[in-house]
Protein backbone atom coordinates (compact mmCIF):
# COMPACT_ATOMS: atom_id res chain seq x y z
CA UNK A 1 0.00 0.00 0.00
CA UNK A 2 2.93 2.29 0.60
CA UNK A 3 3.84 2.02 -3.05
CA UNK A 4 1.34 4.68 -4.07
CA UNK A 5 3.32 7.39 -2.39
CA UNK A 6 5.11 8.99 -5.32
CA UNK A 7 7.03 11.61 -3.38
CA UNK A 8 8.07 9.41 -0.51
CA UNK A 9 11.09 10.52 1.50
CA UNK A 10 14.31 8.88 0.35
CA UNK A 11 17.20 9.47 2.74
CA UNK A 12 20.21 10.99 1.07
CA UNK A 13 22.91 13.59 1.30
CA UNK A 14 22.23 15.87 -1.66
CA UNK A 15 22.34 19.65 -1.50
CA UNK A 16 18.58 19.72 -1.15
CA UNK A 17 18.60 17.19 1.66
CA UNK A 18 20.85 19.52 3.60
CA UNK A 19 18.82 22.71 3.45
CA UNK A 20 17.02 23.07 6.77
CA UNK A 21 13.32 22.20 6.47
CA UNK A 22 11.84 25.57 7.39
CA UNK A 23 14.01 27.31 4.81
CA UNK A 24 13.15 24.65 2.27
CA UNK A 25 9.43 25.07 2.89
CA UNK A 26 9.72 28.83 2.65
CA UNK A 27 11.64 28.48 -0.61
CA UNK A 28 8.93 26.13 -1.81
CA UNK A 29 6.27 28.75 -1.14
CA UNK A 30 8.35 31.31 -3.03
CA UNK A 31 8.62 28.95 -5.99
CA UNK A 32 4.86 28.41 -6.01
CA UNK A 33 4.40 32.18 -6.04
CA UNK A 34 6.92 32.42 -8.88
CA UNK A 35 5.04 29.75 -10.85
CA UNK A 36 1.78 31.63 -10.44
CA UNK A 37 3.35 34.85 -11.72
CA UNK A 38 5.02 33.21 -14.71
CA UNK A 39 3.47 34.38 -17.96
CA UNK A 40 6.13 35.24 -20.52
CA UNK A 41 8.26 32.98 -22.68
CA UNK A 42 11.42 34.18 -20.93
CA UNK A 43 9.72 33.54 -17.63
CA UNK A 44 8.88 29.99 -18.65
CA UNK A 45 12.46 29.43 -19.76
CA UNK A 46 13.78 30.61 -16.41
CA UNK A 47 11.27 28.43 -14.57
CA UNK A 48 12.24 25.33 -16.55
CA UNK A 49 15.94 25.99 -16.04
CA UNK A 50 15.38 26.46 -12.34
CA UNK A 51 13.34 23.26 -12.05
CA UNK A 52 16.03 21.28 -13.87
CA UNK A 53 18.64 22.63 -11.43
CA UNK A 54 16.50 21.70 -8.45
CA UNK A 55 16.02 18.16 -9.73
CA UNK A 56 19.74 17.76 -10.45
CA UNK A 57 20.72 19.06 -7.01
CA UNK A 58 18.33 16.71 -5.28
CA UNK A 59 19.59 13.43 -6.76
CA UNK A 60 15.96 12.48 -7.33
CA UNK A 61 15.56 9.42 -9.54
CA UNK A 62 14.41 10.90 -12.85
CA UNK A 63 12.22 7.90 -13.81
CA UNK A 64 10.12 8.41 -10.69
CA UNK A 65 9.41 11.99 -11.67
CA UNK A 66 8.62 11.08 -15.26
CA UNK A 67 6.28 8.40 -14.00
CA UNK A 68 4.42 10.76 -11.72
CA UNK A 69 4.06 13.27 -14.55
CA UNK A 70 2.96 10.53 -16.93
CA UNK A 71 0.34 9.46 -14.42
CA UNK A 72 -1.08 12.96 -14.54
CA UNK A 73 -1.41 13.06 -18.35
CA UNK A 74 -5.15 12.33 -18.46
CA UNK A 75 -5.67 15.09 -15.93
CA UNK A 76 -3.56 17.45 -18.03
CA UNK A 77 -5.54 16.53 -21.12
CA UNK A 78 -8.80 17.34 -19.36
CA UNK A 79 -7.50 20.71 -18.19
CA UNK A 80 -6.21 21.54 -21.64
CA UNK A 81 -9.43 20.59 -23.40
CA UNK A 82 -11.62 22.38 -20.85
CA UNK A 83 -9.62 25.56 -21.19
CA UNK A 84 -9.45 25.50 -24.96
CA UNK A 85 -13.17 24.89 -25.29
CA UNK A 86 -14.60 27.08 -22.57
CA UNK A 87 -12.34 30.13 -22.60
CA UNK A 88 -14.47 33.14 -23.49
CA UNK A 89 -12.61 34.78 -26.33
CA UNK A 90 -13.43 37.55 -28.80
CA UNK A 91 -12.00 35.81 -31.83
CA UNK A 92 -12.91 32.15 -31.62
CA UNK A 93 -11.76 29.64 -34.21
CA UNK A 94 -14.96 27.69 -33.89
CA UNK A 95 -18.10 28.34 -31.94
CA UNK A 96 -21.02 26.12 -31.07
CA UNK A 97 -23.61 26.96 -28.41
CA UNK A 98 -21.55 27.54 -25.25
CA UNK A 99 -18.42 25.91 -26.64
CA UNK A 100 -15.81 28.28 -28.00
CA UNK A 101 -12.57 26.91 -29.36
CA UNK A 102 -9.97 29.67 -29.37
CA UNK A 103 -6.26 30.21 -29.61
CA UNK A 104 -6.28 32.12 -26.34
CA UNK A 105 -8.03 29.23 -24.68
CA UNK A 106 -5.41 26.80 -25.89
CA UNK A 107 -2.62 29.03 -24.66
CA UNK A 108 -4.40 29.35 -21.35
CA UNK A 109 -4.71 25.55 -21.21
CA UNK A 110 -1.00 25.09 -21.86
CA UNK A 111 -0.28 27.68 -19.17
CA UNK A 112 -2.26 25.81 -16.55
CA UNK A 113 -0.77 22.45 -17.50
CA UNK A 114 2.73 23.87 -17.39
CA UNK A 115 2.21 25.37 -13.96
CA UNK A 116 0.75 22.25 -12.49
CA UNK A 117 3.54 20.11 -13.94
CA UNK A 118 6.20 22.36 -12.41
CA UNK A 119 4.44 22.37 -9.05
CA UNK A 120 4.16 18.58 -9.10
CA UNK A 121 7.86 18.19 -9.83
CA UNK A 122 8.94 20.70 -7.22
CA UNK A 123 6.66 19.34 -4.51
CA UNK A 124 7.77 15.81 -5.37
CA UNK A 125 11.38 16.86 -4.89
CA UNK A 126 10.48 18.60 -1.65
CA UNK A 127 8.86 15.55 -0.11
CA UNK A 128 11.54 13.20 -1.41
CA UNK A 129 14.31 15.20 0.19
CA UNK A 130 12.62 16.09 3.48
CA UNK A 131 11.61 13.61 6.14
CA UNK A 132 8.11 13.94 7.55
CA UNK A 133 9.50 15.01 10.89
CA UNK A 134 11.53 17.62 9.05
CA UNK A 135 8.45 18.89 7.24
CA UNK A 136 6.67 19.06 10.57
CA UNK A 137 9.33 21.14 12.25
CA UNK A 138 9.41 23.36 9.18
CA UNK A 139 5.66 23.95 9.32
CA UNK A 140 5.91 24.57 13.04
CA UNK A 141 8.50 27.28 12.47
CA UNK A 142 6.59 28.86 9.63
CA UNK A 143 3.24 29.09 11.42
CA UNK A 144 4.75 30.72 14.49
CA UNK A 145 3.77 34.26 13.45
CA UNK A 146 0.12 33.16 13.58
CA UNK A 147 0.44 33.38 17.34
CA UNK A 148 -0.21 37.10 17.04
CA UNK A 149 -3.71 36.49 15.75
CA UNK A 150 -4.38 34.23 18.74
CA UNK A 151 -4.00 30.90 16.96
CA UNK A 152 -2.81 28.29 19.48
CA UNK A 153 0.28 27.51 17.43
CA UNK A 154 1.80 24.98 19.85
CA UNK A 155 -1.46 23.06 19.97
CA UNK A 156 -1.68 23.01 16.18
CA UNK A 157 1.91 21.86 15.87
CA UNK A 158 1.26 19.07 18.36
CA UNK A 159 -1.86 17.94 16.47
CA UNK A 160 0.00 17.93 13.15
CA UNK A 161 2.90 15.91 14.45
CA UNK A 162 0.60 13.39 16.11
CA UNK A 163 -1.34 13.15 12.83
CA UNK A 164 1.83 12.31 10.92
CA UNK A 165 2.83 9.72 13.46
CA UNK A 166 -0.55 8.09 13.10
CA UNK A 167 -0.34 7.73 9.32
CA UNK A 168 1.80 4.56 9.07
CA UNK A 169 -0.16 2.83 11.83
CA UNK A 170 -3.46 3.68 10.24
CA UNK A 171 -2.30 2.57 6.79
CA UNK A 172 -1.36 -0.77 8.24
CA UNK A 173 -4.64 -0.96 10.10
CA UNK A 174 -6.69 -0.12 7.03
CA UNK A 175 -4.81 -2.69 4.98
CA UNK A 176 -5.56 -5.31 7.59
CA UNK A 177 -9.24 -4.40 7.80
CA UNK A 178 -9.53 -4.46 4.03
CA UNK A 179 -8.02 -7.93 3.84
CA UNK A 180 -10.14 -9.24 6.69
CA UNK A 181 -13.32 -8.06 5.01
CA UNK A 182 -12.26 -9.37 1.60
CA UNK A 183 -11.56 -12.72 3.23
CA UNK A 184 -15.07 -12.59 4.67
CA UNK A 185 -16.44 -12.08 1.18
CA UNK A 186 -16.68 -8.30 0.80
CA UNK A 187 -16.72 -7.28 -2.86
CA UNK A 188 -15.86 -4.05 -4.56
CA UNK A 189 -16.08 -4.95 -8.21
CA UNK A 190 -19.76 -4.18 -8.59
CA UNK A 191 -20.76 -2.40 -11.78
CA UNK A 192 -23.10 0.01 -10.06
CA UNK A 193 -21.43 3.00 -8.49
CA UNK A 194 -23.86 3.18 -5.60
CA UNK A 195 -23.29 -0.47 -4.74
CA UNK A 196 -19.58 0.00 -4.86
CA UNK A 197 -19.91 3.00 -2.62
CA UNK A 198 -21.93 1.04 -0.10
CA UNK A 199 -19.33 -1.71 -0.14
CA UNK A 200 -17.01 0.74 1.59
CA UNK A 201 -19.06 0.71 4.78
CA UNK A 202 -17.46 -2.50 6.14
CA UNK A 203 -14.07 -0.83 5.67
CA UNK A 204 -14.76 2.66 6.90
CA UNK A 205 -16.70 1.90 10.07
CA UNK A 206 -14.02 -0.43 11.52
CA UNK A 207 -11.28 1.97 10.47
CA UNK A 208 -12.92 4.81 12.37
CA UNK A 209 -13.61 2.60 15.36
CA UNK A 210 -10.07 1.40 15.63
CA UNK A 211 -8.51 4.79 15.00
CA UNK A 212 -10.76 6.46 17.57
CA UNK A 213 -9.82 3.72 19.97
CA UNK A 214 -6.19 4.56 19.41
CA UNK A 215 -6.96 8.24 19.90
CA UNK A 216 -8.74 7.42 23.14
CA UNK A 217 -5.83 5.38 24.42
CA UNK A 218 -3.25 7.96 23.45
CA UNK A 219 -5.15 10.87 24.97
CA UNK A 220 -5.68 8.95 28.19
CA UNK A 221 -2.01 8.08 28.35
CA UNK A 222 -1.11 11.72 27.76
CA UNK A 223 -3.46 13.00 30.41
CA UNK A 224 -2.43 10.43 32.96
CA UNK A 225 1.13 11.60 32.53
CA UNK A 226 0.03 15.11 33.35
CA UNK A 227 -0.22 16.56 29.86
CA UNK A 228 -2.63 19.49 29.92
CA UNK A 229 -1.82 21.35 26.75
CA UNK A 230 1.03 22.07 24.43
CA UNK A 231 1.89 25.43 25.98
CA UNK A 232 4.47 24.24 28.46
CA UNK A 233 6.16 21.92 26.02
CA UNK A 234 9.92 22.22 25.79
CA UNK A 235 10.64 23.65 22.39
CA UNK A 236 12.71 21.51 20.08
CA UNK A 237 16.27 22.55 19.51
CA UNK A 238 16.09 25.18 16.80
CA UNK A 239 18.10 24.59 13.70
CA UNK A 240 19.94 27.75 12.89
CA UNK A 241 19.79 29.16 9.43
CA UNK A 242 23.01 28.13 7.70
CA UNK A 243 24.52 29.61 4.56
CA UNK A 244 23.09 26.98 2.25
CA UNK A 245 19.57 27.62 3.50
CA UNK A 246 19.89 31.38 3.22
CA UNK A 247 21.17 30.94 -0.32
CA UNK A 248 18.22 28.75 -1.24
CA UNK A 249 15.80 31.38 0.02
CA UNK A 250 17.64 34.13 -1.85
CA UNK A 251 17.66 32.11 -5.07
CA UNK A 252 13.96 31.41 -4.85
CA UNK A 253 13.16 35.01 -3.92
CA UNK A 254 15.17 36.17 -6.91
CA UNK A 255 13.30 33.81 -9.19
CA UNK A 256 10.03 35.04 -7.77
CA UNK A 257 11.03 38.67 -8.28
CA UNK A 258 12.13 37.92 -11.84
CA UNK A 259 8.79 36.32 -12.70
CA UNK A 260 6.90 39.24 -11.19
CA UNK A 261 8.91 41.85 -13.11
CA UNK A 262 8.85 40.30 -16.58
Amino acid at each position, binding site marked *: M*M*RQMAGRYIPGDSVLHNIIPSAKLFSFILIIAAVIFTNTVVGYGAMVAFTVCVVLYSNTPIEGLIKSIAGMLPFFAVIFVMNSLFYSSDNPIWKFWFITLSKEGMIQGLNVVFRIAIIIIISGVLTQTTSTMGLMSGIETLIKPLKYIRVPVEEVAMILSVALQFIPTLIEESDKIKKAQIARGARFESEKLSERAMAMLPMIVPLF*LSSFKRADELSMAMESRGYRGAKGRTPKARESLDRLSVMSIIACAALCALEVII
Partner: protein
Amino acid sequence: MSIELKNITHIYEPGTPFEAAALNNVSLEIREGEKIGLMGRTGCGKSTLIQIMAGLIKPLNGNVIIDGIDIDEEGYDRTGLRQKLGIVFQYPEVQLFETTAYKDVAFGLKYSDLTPEEKDENIRWAFEITGFDPDKVGSKSPLELSGGEKRRLAIAGVLAVRPKYLILDEPIAGLDPVAREKFLKLLRDLNEEGMTIIMISHNADAIAGFADRTIVMSNGRIEIEGDTKTVFMDRPKADEAGISVSTAGRIAGMLRDRGIDVSEDVMSESELLKELCVHFNNDNRSEDQT
Protein backbone atom coordinates in the same frame (compact mmCIF):
# COMPACT_ATOMS: atom_id res chain seq x y z
CA MET B 1 -8.18 -32.28 -1.38
CA SER B 2 -5.50 -30.00 -0.10
CA ILE B 3 -3.84 -26.62 -0.10
CA GLU B 4 -0.63 -26.76 -2.03
CA LEU B 5 1.97 -24.04 -2.25
CA LYS B 6 4.50 -24.47 -5.01
CA ASN B 7 7.77 -22.51 -5.00
CA ILE B 8 6.29 -19.35 -3.57
CA THR B 9 8.56 -16.32 -3.66
CA HIS B 10 7.36 -12.93 -2.61
CA ILE B 11 9.03 -9.56 -2.35
CA TYR B 12 7.35 -6.43 -1.04
CA GLU B 13 7.71 -3.35 -3.26
CA PRO B 14 10.09 -4.89 -5.77
CA GLY B 15 12.24 -2.45 -7.67
CA THR B 16 12.06 0.32 -5.07
CA PRO B 17 14.55 1.31 -2.41
CA PHE B 18 12.07 -0.16 0.08
CA GLU B 19 12.28 -3.66 -1.37
CA ALA B 20 11.91 -6.33 1.28
CA ALA B 21 11.98 -10.07 0.72
CA ALA B 22 9.20 -11.87 2.50
CA LEU B 23 9.22 -15.41 1.17
CA ASN B 24 11.91 -17.33 -0.57
CA ASN B 25 10.91 -20.37 -2.58
CA VAL B 26 8.49 -21.90 -0.12
CA SER B 27 6.72 -25.14 -0.97
CA LEU B 28 4.22 -26.74 1.30
CA GLU B 29 1.27 -29.08 1.28
CA ILE B 30 -1.57 -29.04 3.76
CA ARG B 31 -3.93 -31.99 3.60
CA GLU B 32 -7.55 -31.94 4.52
CA GLY B 33 -8.26 -32.59 8.18
CA GLU B 34 -4.82 -31.62 9.48
CA LYS B 35 -4.07 -29.45 12.47
CA ILE B 36 -1.07 -27.34 11.56
CA GLY B 37 0.95 -25.09 13.84
CA LEU B 38 2.93 -22.32 12.19
CA MET B 39 5.70 -20.71 14.21
CA GLY B 40 8.61 -18.36 13.78
CA ARG B 41 9.97 -15.03 14.90
CA THR B 42 8.21 -11.78 14.06
CA GLY B 43 8.97 -10.87 10.46
CA CYS B 44 9.84 -14.41 9.38
CA GLY B 45 7.15 -14.33 6.69
CA LYS B 46 4.42 -16.42 8.28
CA SER B 47 1.75 -13.74 7.97
CA THR B 48 2.66 -13.23 4.33
CA LEU B 49 2.47 -16.98 3.82
CA ILE B 50 -1.07 -17.32 5.15
CA GLN B 51 -2.25 -14.29 3.21
CA ILE B 52 -0.89 -15.81 0.02
CA MET B 53 -2.56 -19.09 0.95
CA ALA B 54 -5.87 -17.24 1.32
CA GLY B 55 -5.45 -15.49 -2.01
CA LEU B 56 -5.21 -12.05 -0.40
CA ILE B 57 -1.73 -11.37 -1.73
CA LYS B 58 -0.66 -12.51 -5.16
CA PRO B 59 2.81 -13.94 -4.87
CA LEU B 60 5.53 -12.66 -7.17
CA ASN B 61 6.32 -16.22 -8.20
CA GLY B 62 4.85 -19.61 -7.58
CA ASN B 63 1.41 -21.18 -7.44
CA VAL B 64 -1.25 -21.67 -4.85
CA ILE B 65 -3.33 -24.72 -5.61
CA ILE B 66 -6.45 -25.27 -3.56
CA ASP B 67 -8.33 -28.52 -4.08
CA GLY B 68 -6.43 -29.09 -7.29
CA ILE B 69 -7.10 -25.72 -8.92
CA ASP B 70 -4.62 -22.86 -9.22
CA ILE B 71 -6.29 -19.84 -7.60
CA ASP B 72 -4.58 -17.40 -9.94
CA GLU B 73 -5.97 -19.12 -12.99
CA GLU B 74 -8.20 -16.99 -15.15
CA GLY B 75 -11.83 -17.23 -14.12
CA TYR B 76 -11.12 -18.83 -10.78
CA ASP B 77 -14.19 -18.67 -8.57
CA ARG B 78 -13.04 -16.23 -5.87
CA THR B 79 -16.42 -16.12 -4.20
CA GLY B 80 -16.24 -19.89 -3.89
CA LEU B 81 -12.79 -19.57 -2.38
CA ARG B 82 -14.12 -17.21 0.28
CA GLN B 83 -16.73 -19.81 1.24
CA LYS B 84 -14.12 -22.52 1.35
CA LEU B 85 -11.33 -20.84 3.22
CA GLY B 86 -11.76 -18.67 6.29
CA ILE B 87 -9.07 -16.51 7.80
CA VAL B 88 -9.05 -15.05 11.28
CA PHE B 89 -6.56 -12.22 11.57
CA GLN B 90 -4.81 -11.11 14.69
CA TYR B 91 -7.24 -9.07 16.82
CA PRO B 92 -10.16 -9.96 14.54
CA GLU B 93 -12.51 -7.83 16.64
CA VAL B 94 -11.62 -4.81 14.49
CA GLN B 95 -13.63 -6.25 11.61
CA LEU B 96 -16.99 -5.85 13.37
CA PHE B 97 -19.09 -3.11 11.83
CA GLU B 98 -22.74 -4.04 11.49
CA THR B 99 -25.50 -2.65 13.68
CA THR B 100 -26.39 -6.03 15.14
CA ALA B 101 -24.34 -9.10 15.98
CA TYR B 102 -26.57 -11.28 13.81
CA LYS B 103 -26.03 -9.13 10.73
CA ASP B 104 -22.31 -9.06 11.36
CA VAL B 105 -22.05 -12.83 11.50
CA ALA B 106 -24.25 -13.04 8.40
CA PHE B 107 -21.97 -10.72 6.39
CA GLY B 108 -19.84 -13.51 4.93
CA LEU B 109 -22.91 -15.34 3.65
CA LYS B 110 -24.13 -12.41 1.59
CA TYR B 111 -23.01 -13.87 -1.71
CA SER B 112 -23.40 -17.55 -0.91
CA ASP B 113 -25.85 -19.71 -2.84
CA LEU B 114 -27.51 -21.10 0.26
CA THR B 115 -31.23 -20.64 0.88
CA PRO B 116 -32.21 -18.16 3.62
CA GLU B 117 -33.08 -21.07 5.91
CA GLU B 118 -29.71 -22.70 5.40
CA LYS B 119 -28.00 -19.39 6.00
CA ASP B 120 -29.89 -18.88 9.22
CA GLU B 121 -28.97 -22.38 10.31
CA ASN B 122 -25.29 -21.71 9.62
CA ILE B 123 -25.40 -18.43 11.50
CA ARG B 124 -27.03 -20.02 14.53
CA TRP B 125 -24.47 -22.80 14.45
CA ALA B 126 -21.65 -20.24 14.38
CA PHE B 127 -23.15 -18.40 17.34
CA GLU B 128 -23.59 -21.55 19.34
CA ILE B 129 -20.22 -23.09 18.65
CA THR B 130 -18.51 -19.88 19.77
CA GLY B 131 -20.53 -19.93 22.97
CA PHE B 132 -23.30 -17.43 22.28
CA ASP B 133 -27.04 -17.72 22.47
CA PRO B 134 -28.12 -16.37 19.06
CA ASP B 135 -31.50 -15.25 20.41
CA LYS B 136 -29.95 -13.25 23.20
CA VAL B 137 -26.88 -11.77 21.51
CA GLY B 138 -28.10 -11.62 17.93
CA SER B 139 -29.95 -8.35 18.24
CA LYS B 140 -27.28 -6.58 20.30
CA SER B 141 -24.81 -4.19 18.76
CA PRO B 142 -21.47 -5.99 18.39
CA LEU B 143 -19.82 -2.89 19.81
CA GLU B 144 -21.58 -3.25 23.13
CA LEU B 145 -19.99 -6.64 23.80
CA SER B 146 -16.93 -7.08 26.00
CA GLY B 147 -13.46 -7.48 24.48
CA GLY B 148 -13.39 -11.26 24.67
CA GLU B 149 -16.94 -11.55 23.36
CA LYS B 150 -16.08 -9.30 20.43
CA ARG B 151 -13.26 -11.59 19.46
CA ARG B 152 -15.46 -14.66 19.64
CA LEU B 153 -18.14 -12.91 17.62
CA ALA B 154 -15.63 -11.97 14.94
CA ILE B 155 -14.56 -15.60 14.76
CA ALA B 156 -18.21 -16.64 14.50
CA GLY B 157 -18.41 -14.29 11.52
CA VAL B 158 -15.63 -16.23 9.81
CA LEU B 159 -17.05 -19.62 10.77
CA ALA B 160 -20.55 -18.81 9.48
CA VAL B 161 -19.64 -19.88 5.94
CA ARG B 162 -18.50 -23.22 7.40
CA PRO B 163 -15.12 -23.04 5.71
CA LYS B 164 -13.29 -26.21 4.87
CA TYR B 165 -9.97 -24.60 5.72
CA LEU B 166 -9.56 -22.24 8.65
CA ILE B 167 -6.45 -20.13 9.05
CA LEU B 168 -5.84 -18.26 12.30
CA ASP B 169 -3.16 -15.65 12.97
CA GLU B 170 -2.29 -15.53 16.68
CA PRO B 171 -5.85 -16.21 17.78
CA ILE B 172 -4.95 -16.74 21.43
CA ALA B 173 -2.73 -13.69 21.91
CA GLY B 174 -3.98 -11.73 24.91
CA LEU B 175 -6.44 -14.38 26.11
CA ASP B 176 -6.36 -15.52 29.74
CA PRO B 177 -5.43 -19.19 30.32
CA VAL B 178 -9.02 -20.34 30.79
CA ALA B 179 -10.24 -18.58 27.65
CA ARG B 180 -7.23 -19.96 25.80
CA GLU B 181 -7.99 -23.54 26.76
CA LYS B 182 -11.63 -23.05 25.79
CA PHE B 183 -10.60 -21.63 22.47
CA LEU B 184 -8.21 -24.47 21.69
CA LYS B 185 -10.99 -26.89 22.54
CA LEU B 186 -13.25 -25.10 20.06
CA LEU B 187 -10.57 -25.55 17.40
CA ARG B 188 -10.22 -29.24 18.25
CA ASP B 189 -13.99 -29.68 17.98
CA LEU B 190 -14.04 -27.97 14.61
CA ASN B 191 -11.22 -30.21 13.48
CA GLU B 192 -13.19 -33.27 14.63
CA GLU B 193 -15.97 -32.11 12.33
CA GLY B 194 -13.50 -32.20 9.47
CA MET B 195 -12.22 -28.63 9.33
CA THR B 196 -8.57 -28.24 8.42
CA ILE B 197 -6.92 -25.81 10.81
CA ILE B 198 -3.76 -23.79 10.36
CA MET B 199 -2.78 -21.75 13.40
CA ILE B 200 0.00 -19.23 13.79
CA SER B 201 1.15 -18.85 17.37
CA HIS B 202 4.18 -17.85 19.38
CA ASN B 203 2.87 -19.89 22.23
CA ALA B 204 4.84 -23.15 22.39
CA ASP B 205 2.36 -24.66 24.86
CA ALA B 206 -0.58 -24.04 22.57
CA ILE B 207 1.17 -25.45 19.51
CA ALA B 208 2.55 -28.45 21.40
CA GLY B 209 -0.89 -29.26 22.74
CA PHE B 210 -2.77 -28.66 19.54
CA ALA B 211 -0.92 -29.23 16.28
CA ASP B 212 -0.30 -32.56 14.58
CA ARG B 213 2.30 -31.00 12.38
CA THR B 214 4.42 -27.95 13.02
CA ILE B 215 6.08 -25.68 10.51
CA VAL B 216 8.78 -23.32 11.69
CA MET B 217 9.75 -20.43 9.47
CA SER B 218 12.79 -18.23 9.53
CA ASN B 219 13.86 -15.49 7.13
CA GLY B 220 11.21 -16.27 4.57
CA ARG B 221 11.94 -19.99 4.41
CA ILE B 222 10.56 -23.08 6.02
CA GLU B 223 13.28 -23.96 8.49
CA ILE B 224 11.84 -27.04 10.15
CA GLU B 225 8.79 -29.05 9.24
CA GLY B 226 7.46 -32.28 10.64
CA ASP B 227 5.22 -33.73 13.25
CA THR B 228 5.05 -31.51 16.29
CA LYS B 229 6.91 -33.85 18.57
CA THR B 230 9.89 -34.23 16.27
CA VAL B 231 10.10 -30.48 15.72
CA PHE B 232 10.11 -29.69 19.43
CA MET B 233 12.53 -32.51 20.21
CA ASP B 234 15.17 -31.25 17.83
CA ARG B 235 16.44 -28.70 20.32
CA PRO B 236 19.49 -27.25 18.52
CA LYS B 237 17.44 -26.46 15.43
CA ALA B 238 14.41 -25.28 17.36
CA ASP B 239 16.48 -22.98 19.55
CA GLU B 240 18.08 -21.46 16.50
CA ALA B 241 14.66 -20.67 15.02
CA GLY B 242 13.58 -19.14 18.33
CA ILE B 243 11.16 -21.90 19.36
CA SER B 244 11.13 -22.28 23.10
CA VAL B 245 10.45 -25.53 24.93
CA SER B 246 6.83 -25.91 26.00
CA THR B 247 6.12 -25.54 29.72
CA ALA B 248 5.25 -29.21 30.01
CA GLY B 249 8.45 -30.15 28.19
CA ARG B 250 10.47 -27.97 30.53
CA ILE B 251 8.88 -29.49 33.63
CA ALA B 252 9.55 -32.96 32.26
CA GLY B 253 13.20 -31.99 31.79
CA MET B 254 13.44 -30.73 35.38
CA LEU B 255 11.90 -33.94 36.66
CA ARG B 256 14.41 -35.97 34.68
CA ASP B 257 17.23 -33.91 36.17
CA ARG B 258 15.96 -34.86 39.60
CA GLY B 259 16.00 -38.53 38.68
CA ILE B 260 12.33 -39.04 38.00
CA ASP B 261 11.96 -41.12 34.92
CA VAL B 262 9.81 -39.13 32.50
CA SER B 263 10.01 -39.93 28.82
CA GLU B 264 11.95 -37.49 26.64
CA ASP B 265 9.15 -36.86 24.19
CA VAL B 266 6.70 -35.24 26.60
CA MET B 267 5.53 -31.99 25.02
CA SER B 268 1.99 -31.20 26.04
CA GLU B 269 0.30 -30.91 29.41
CA SER B 270 -1.89 -33.96 28.82
CA GLU B 271 1.13 -36.09 27.93
CA LEU B 272 2.97 -34.96 31.04
CA LEU B 273 -0.03 -35.75 33.18
CA LYS B 274 -0.38 -39.20 31.66
CA GLU B 275 3.33 -39.86 32.06
CA LEU B 276 3.29 -38.84 35.71
CA CYS B 277 0.27 -41.00 36.47
CA VAL B 278 1.96 -43.99 34.90
CA HIS B 279 5.18 -43.19 36.72
CA PHE B 280 3.70 -42.89 40.20
CA ASN B 281 1.47 -45.93 39.74
CA ASN B 282 4.44 -48.02 38.69
CA ASP B 283 6.75 -46.48 41.24
CA ASN B 284 6.79 -49.30 43.73
CA ARG B 285 6.90 -52.03 41.15
CA SER B 286 9.82 -50.50 39.26
CA GLU B 287 11.80 -50.12 42.48
CA ASP B 288 11.24 -53.78 43.23
CA GLN B 289 12.61 -54.80 39.88
CA THR B 290 15.85 -52.83 40.30
